[in-house]
């Protein structure tokens, strides 16, 4: 309970930092229009007055944070509707993409790690190492571009981005067809990493007494590692999962642009360019909240996975 209560001051501090950082560069939302030959300086100044952007920064912060406390995130300067609606329209799409990428990373990572650890073949271990290096070293904007080029432009196996076929009612298979490529690209970064965690963890416990005992009772290496070794690997894996969330969100931003995925990352990118402060701050706060909550959940899951860990 104490840990949950500790979230509030942490989020308040984060809001202050985010507000400061977002307002650090020169210019603002009205100035985006000022480069247009049709815009007049007087009209731009009036926009700043109407939006309260001519007020001192601390006044602007106080106004924003006090409204935030009653659920009002402000109005988007670009879309002219509540920033909360703008962000919430996109949030489920990002959750779908990052969730699928996590699943890809976990299933493939754990599976390959297990395979590399259990296998006695040097070729399999070598192949696993190559996969690991490739996955970690290839940036998603590049792998995404290659996937689109090969599988969409040439082979026509996957669509050219987007979340669904335009003009068709949304259905599960169509959604899956559109989701597969971006999820694989985003998840591939983690496949390598988690495979190496699992492999290294299993290799460590493979020579432990309890695994040797299990093997002497007649279990195969795979059975012994799965039943007795794997739970020991879970703890560091959960830690890594919690720590990886910010990287997953920033990776989603790139993947969403490459695959025209209408998620929060792409929204954030566009809103930053347009200096749409209410949307930028809303999206960043949601991301910050997600990180804080996942870290809290990670701590709580420790207690379940390892009975020695207890929180007051």
């Amino acid at each position, binding site marked *: 309970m104490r840990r949950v209560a500790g979230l509030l001051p942490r989020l308040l501090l984060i809001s202050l930092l985010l507000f400061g950082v977002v307002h650090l560069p020169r210019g603002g939302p009205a100035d985006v229009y000022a480069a247009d*030959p049709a815009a007049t300086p007087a009209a731009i100044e009036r*926009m700043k007055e109407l939006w309260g952007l001519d007020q001192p920064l601390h006044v602007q912060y106080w106004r924003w944070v006090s409204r935030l406390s009653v659920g009002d995130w402000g109005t988007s300067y670009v879309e002219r509707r509540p920033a909360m609606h703008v962000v919430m329209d996109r949030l489920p799409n990002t959750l779908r993409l990052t969730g699928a990428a996590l699943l890809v990373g976990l299933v493939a990572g754990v599976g390959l790690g297990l395979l590399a650890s259990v296998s006695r073949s040097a070729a399999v271990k070598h192949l696993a190492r190559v996969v690991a290096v490739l996955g970690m070293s290839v940036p998603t904007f590049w792998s995404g571009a290659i996937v689109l080029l090969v599988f969409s432009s040439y082979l026509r196996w996957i669509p050219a981005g987007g979340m669904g076929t335009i*003009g068709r009612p949304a259905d599960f298979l169509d959604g899956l067809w559109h989701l597969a490529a971006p999820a694989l690209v985003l998840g591939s970064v983690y496949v390598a990493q988690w495979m190496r965690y699992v492999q290294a963890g299993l290799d460590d416990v493979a020579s432990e007494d309890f695994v040797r005992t299990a093997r002497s009772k007649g279990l195969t290496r795979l059975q012994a590692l799965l039943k007795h070794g794997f739970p020991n690997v879970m703890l560091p894996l959960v830690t890594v999962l919690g720590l990886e969330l910010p990287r997953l969100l920033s990776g989603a931003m790139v993947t969403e642009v490459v695959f025209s995925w209408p998620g929060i990352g*792409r929204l954030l990118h566009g809103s930053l360019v347009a200096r749409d402060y209410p949307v930028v701050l809303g999206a960043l706060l949601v991301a910050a909240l997600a990180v804080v909550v996942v870290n809290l959940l990670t701590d709580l899951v420790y207690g379940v996975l390892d009975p020695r860990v207890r929180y007051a």
Partner: protein
Amino acid sequence: MNRNSRFSTTLLAAAALWFAPLAAAQTITVLFPQEPGSLLPHFDLLSLAHEAQDLVFDRLFVVDENGQYLPWLAAEVPTLANGGLSEDGRTYTIRLREGVTWHDGEPLTSADVAFTWRVITDPDLPIPTRTVWQDIESVDTPDAHTVVINFPEPNVTFLGAASFAGAYILPEHLLAGTDLNTSPFHRQPVGSGPFRLVEWQSGSFLHFERVDDYWGGPAQAESVVIRIVPGSEAQRAVLERGEADLVLQLAITELPFIEALPGHEAVQVPTFANWQVWLNNEDPALSDVRVRRALTHALDRELIAESLLGGLTTPSDAAVPPSHWAHAADVPSYPYDPEEAERLLAEAGWTRPSPGAIRTRDGEPLVIEVINIAGQADRVQVIQAIQAFWRDVGVGAEIRNIDAASFPPTLAAGDFQSAYGFFSEQQEPTWNLWLGTNWQRYANEAAFALLERYSVTVDQQERRALAIEFQTLVAEDQPVIFIAPRPLLAAASTALQGYSPTTTTSLWNVHTWQK
């Protein structure tokens, strides 16, 4: 055919049908690299927002692909000859087309035009441009189809402003008394145009359906889909799969790809914009006209245009691009001449301490900072070329990248030496580069006096003469280096008929398009 193979064939056909996007022949798909923020006209200056608004709304006049005014909601273009424009240039009498209705069936009347003027000039609304409309003294509506626009002074820019992309007429009966700041109308517009918005999936697409009783006759296409695809890789994939009829605002770097793509053609969209280098005329080094001329002489702009701007454009020393009726073809020019550049710099006191070194004067090196908007590869390439050319004549250049929102206030504050970007003139020049922003801090009384005379001269030929005189003075003074007119690139399917982009919008005549 046995039962198994029949089954397989049916299955394959079903799968093909299932996976095929529903891009029916009667649907025109247009790719936008960026999503419009709002479809309520006058609140968004993004040119792509205007393109989308063109589907739903109408202007009083449009400018066609030949730069000629066409009556649109107006029944005719007001001129001195037809009496629509008063002799003193202060009053425009506009007769509206009859039988035009809003999508909800209500008639479009002169009251809607007057309401639109009140919205644009409402000081309590965050409207980014009120140019020209704010100079109107009053709008009279003697009957439902006559609008009388009164200016206190002669005004020569109204037709340009009324045909400007974005100058759409709003429905008073739906918007009067509502809070336009947060109106649902931003995303659920009701207009008088050839299409109505039926679905907007944020970040994905906007789907428009034909309005059967459109005053210009029902559109040829049943629907238009604007698909939002920001990444160039995905844009390429969409094009290669034949899923788009038109792609707007392609990067110039995509030109070779489009030229090699079967079934598509690269289209150069006309603009009145110049790529240019703003020189801060109050900077100690750049206040000397010899230095400014030398910096222009040092650049091989032909080469830049050919290799970095896709060969789509030819450099000009005039402030108004050659595509514009007010362009001055015969102004002092500064062709690529490094020797002349070196001579002018030496004459201005900037000498090389040693061969190949950066020039100095009183121990101060001649190093010029160039501000650029970060994130666009083609801009960076041009600036690097400028940097290399200047370096050849002993002028150093340091590039400072800033974001788009920081660019205007930085230049407005004079906190710069030079900056690279583009600026566009209007159909009826408002000279905002000089009379409005004047980021270059140009100070030539004689030149500004010409613009003042221009703004009250009703006869177009006389205005043109004044515009040419002004551009000649500017070319002599070189307060800004004009690199080349800015080409805009689009890719169109060869099957698409009727697409004829103008300097204001590409979708202005979308109701006539077919494929």
